């Protein structure tokens, strides 16, 4: 195995795979920055180009591109409050709040360093999981996946503000997200729910269009109201100087970064959970790391831990989602499903062969994830000064540029005007939520997990009837969900007694 590990490294370090990886990194860099153009879309667009390549070259190109899109997606989220990728929306809450306080450099430094650690943890997990992944994945049937979604939904309690009013609004926001997740054709009975006879709504609300609206539109309005730059009147010199502080923050909260990386890897391994879930669960876990009620208030207002958690989970999930794709041919996300197409184009069959005959190719993927992220993070650090200074550009120049990106990003989700209308509608809702003091994170969590929870619940009931409730892992996850809900209450009680 060690021999195959090094063979994989040597395969990647040949000039042709390295050149294709560099090309992929360059493409992924820009794809991540642009809202709407997701890593999965670009993978699909680039898939025909791998026909003529060797497997190692093709995976260096495709994975290099995909691995860095999540990293650079955080840059747009931090600087402009617009999610570069659906999977980097959680970084906005604290990352953009830091940018507004003149700490864009520190936020970017933290996002990049945590992304790198996350990517390495994910790649390491991929490498060591190869012999043990089979029993782990097979332990998780539909009942366990349903309970995992419930654990995710339970994080709403952590993402809500303290006090009964804050909790009420948090659960209302989560409830709205869950309700929105029911829009579209019901997978069980085939009923078109809340579609108002519009074909566009049959597939449900597009996540990118909703996320871009709910996060970007309030930021644009804020910029228009303030009539200043994102960082206000803060001097430009101070803004770009904190990057190294952000790196130090990552090591200051090293175990939080590692824990969030593991959350990302685990969610990535679970087929059907999707990368968007990982960052919000990691964000929820990051808020739980606050030791006092006073510390918890800092989340959403620019706490660096709110950047580290999603940043790490976002990148570690890539290694995790490759595990079931390679080992069983079961893709963990849309991007992995497209990558699976790449396997077949190259004449490779996912499964036991990838863990024996083609093990060096599998390890070359591990190295690609690591090398691509190291290269991207280093390149980003070189550009950081210039990137952070974008927060000092006056709002009247930024607003039209950001709005063009928002509208194109939203439209390109499905090439339908309906996406822009969805963005505008949820932009209005997002604006009211911010003005009214309602948290937006629980809404996104509800929207992302609602459909997953409903599907797995029905499969569990149809397959096991009530017996699924007694499965050991289900019970363990149920206890974890209760602990996640109870944690903020216990924390507050402890603070009150202190």
């Amino acid at each position, binding site marked *: 195995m060690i021999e195959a590990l090094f063979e994989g490294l040597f395969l990647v370090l040949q000039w042709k795979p390295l050149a294709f990886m560099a090309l992929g990194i360059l493409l992924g860099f820009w794809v991540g920055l642009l809202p709407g153009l997701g890593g999965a879309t670009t993978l699909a667009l680039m898939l025909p180009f791998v026909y003529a390549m060797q497997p190692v070259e093709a995976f260096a190109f495709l994975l290099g591109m995909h691995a860095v899109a999540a990293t650079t997606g955080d840059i747009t989220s931090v600087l402009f409050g617009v999610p570069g990728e659906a999977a980097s929306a959680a970084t906005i809450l604290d990352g953009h709040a830091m940018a507004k306080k003149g700490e864009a450099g520190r936020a970017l430094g933290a996002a990049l360093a945590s992304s790198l650690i996350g990517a390495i943890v994910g790649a390491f997990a991929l490498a060591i999981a190869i012999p043990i992944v089979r029993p782990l994945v097979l332990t998780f049937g539909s009942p366990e996946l349903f309970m995992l979604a419930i654990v995710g939904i339970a994080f709403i309690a952590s993402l809500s503000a303290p*006090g009964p009013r804050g909790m009420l609004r948090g659960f209302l926001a989560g409830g709205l997200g869950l309700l929105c997740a029911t829009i579209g054709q019901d997978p069980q009975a085939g009923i078109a729910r809340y579609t108002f006879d519009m074909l566009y709504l049959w597939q449900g609300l597009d996540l990118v269009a909703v996320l871009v609206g709910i996060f970007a539109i309030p930021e644009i309005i804020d910029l228009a109201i303030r009539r200043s730059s994102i960082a206000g009147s803060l001097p430009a010199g101070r803004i770009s100087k904190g990057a190294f502080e952000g790196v130090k923050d990552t090591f200051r909260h090293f175990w939080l970064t590692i824990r969030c990386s593991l959350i990302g890897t685990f969610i990535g391994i679970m087929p059907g959970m999707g990368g968007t879930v990982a960052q919000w669960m990691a964000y929820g876990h990051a808020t739980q790391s606050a030791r006092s009620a006073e510390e918890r208030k800092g989340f959403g207002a620019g706490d660096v831990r709110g950047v580290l958690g999603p940043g790490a989970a976002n990148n570690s999930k890539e290694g995790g989602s490759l595990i079931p794709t390679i080992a069983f041919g079961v893709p963990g996300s849309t991007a992995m499903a497209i990558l699976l197409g790449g396997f077949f184009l190259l004449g490779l069959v996912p499964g036991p062969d990838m863990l024996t005959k083609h093990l060096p190719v599998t390890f070359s993927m591990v190295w690609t994830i690591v090398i691509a992220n190291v290269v991207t993070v280093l390149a980003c650090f070189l550009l950081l000064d210039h990137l952070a200074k974008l927060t000092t550009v006056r709002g009247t120049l930024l607003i039209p540029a950001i709005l063009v990106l928002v509208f194109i990003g939203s439209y390109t989700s499905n090439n339908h005007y309906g996406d822009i209308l969805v963005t505008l509608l949820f932009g209005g809702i997002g604006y009211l939520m911010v003005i009214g003091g309602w948290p937006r994170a629980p809404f996104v969590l509800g929207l992302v997990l609602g459909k997953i929870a409903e599907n797995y619940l029905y499969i569990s009931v149809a397959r096991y009837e009530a017996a699924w409730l007694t499965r050991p892992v289900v019970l363990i996850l149920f206890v974890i969900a209760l602990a996640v809900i109870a944690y903020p209450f216990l924390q507050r009680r402890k603070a009150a007694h202190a």
Partner: protein
Amino acid sequence: MHSRASLALALGMMAVSGYAVIAAWAWPWKASLFPLAIGVPVFVLSAAEAAWVVLGTTEKSEVQDVQIAQDVPERVALGRTASAAAWIAGFFAAIVLVGFPAAVPLFVFLYLKLEGRERWVFSAVFTAVIWACFYGLFDRLLHLPFPQGWLAAWLGF
């Protein structure tokens, strides 16, 4: 503004969840169980939030989220919000009427001139750069299908 927004949201959610429950009632249980299980508690909770606002508890609750410009007087903020909303709606209308390729430069230029009060030359150059990025990346490189717009279609272009 804080409590008005919260009341608007709570009432809106009462209406949405009420409709969701009524509509779900007519579906088979497989399709209606989840919407009913969520819709009923959301209706009750949003009624509680509305009552909370109406009964006079208007103090701002702490929130783990960003805050929109709080150092600007409310009247000014409302005016600027309305103006920003009008620009956003106008951009969307322009996209529908003349299509992305024409709406992007039109919106950017007008915004810079009218809202930003930038100079003519600067506005023209900035618009040209944005349009070149849009056209080069999305149209030429990625070949994304942008429809021509209703007005152009109506005029037969």
